[in-house]
């Protein structure tokens, strides 16, 4: 998005050098990639589950979208909200709230309509029930 805006402005030659430079420096100081939160992926007998660690986030700051089999979990307008207590002096800083985006391809045998997401205590739990045909069938065999 940012680079597209830059190309548009190239047309206006009077700003050419200035903008090129400022764009360059802006990019330079931005994190190049979004972070990926720690995740656990598991299955039980009846469902698939994804747990994501998102400490510091509120429910309203996260979006979960499904497009076909693709599940996208990402932070909403994190760029504005990242500046938490920016004025304090950090003696040590191991973590920081950062924009994130994660994509998952769900198994074919998922019951996509019944996908559920819950966010509590900084953990996002996504649960996708398995489709009925994928559930283990138990047939009792009569012994004659």
């Amino acid at each position, binding site marked *: 998005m940012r680079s597209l805006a830059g190309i548009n402005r190239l047309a206006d030659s009077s700003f050419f050098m200035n903008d090129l430079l400022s764009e360059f420096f802006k990019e330079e100081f931005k994190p190049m990639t979004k972070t990926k939160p*720690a*995740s*656990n*992926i*598991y*299955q*039980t*007998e009846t469902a698939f*589950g994804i*747990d994501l*660690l*998102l*400490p*510091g*986030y*509120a429910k309203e700051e996260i979006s979960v979208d499904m497009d076909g089999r693709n599940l996208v979990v990402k932070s909403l307008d994190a760029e504005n909200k990242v500046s938490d*207590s920016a004025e*304090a*002096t*950090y*003696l*040590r*800083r*191991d*973590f*920081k709230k950062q924009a994130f985006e994660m994509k998952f391809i769900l198994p074919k045998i998922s019951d996509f309509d019944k996908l559920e997401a819950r966010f509590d*205590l*900084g*953990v996002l739990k996504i649960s996708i029930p398995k489709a009925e045909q994928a559930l283990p069938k138990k047939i009792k065999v009569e012994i004659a």
Partner: protein
Amino acid sequence: MRVNSSLIDFNRSFSNMPLNVLKNDNGYVFEFIVPGFKQEELKVVVEHDQLILKAKRVDGTDAEKMRYSQKNFDHSGFTRKLKLPEHVDVDGLSAKLAHGILKVDLPFDSKKHIVRSVSIN
């Protein structure tokens, strides 16, 4: 970036839980990442010159039969010990849990922590 050597966590091997340490006008703020832990599962203790954070999961939801294809974290519990900085008021310690981050406020001891500006002649 570790400026104050007394804040170095000598027991780091106990846990790889990241930690932020801030200093403001009133004292220090420790930020621990504790996603998934409830308030009653966390305990902050001061023992001699150590600040100890104990986290232990009480409920047994993890005992459910789960087959992991990817396991990057485990939050059954951990203990984290930190050496307390000097000139702090341990009685004024307070902690707050929000969205999986535990903030521990440790105010300065106003009798010992003296801030003085010196005029330059």
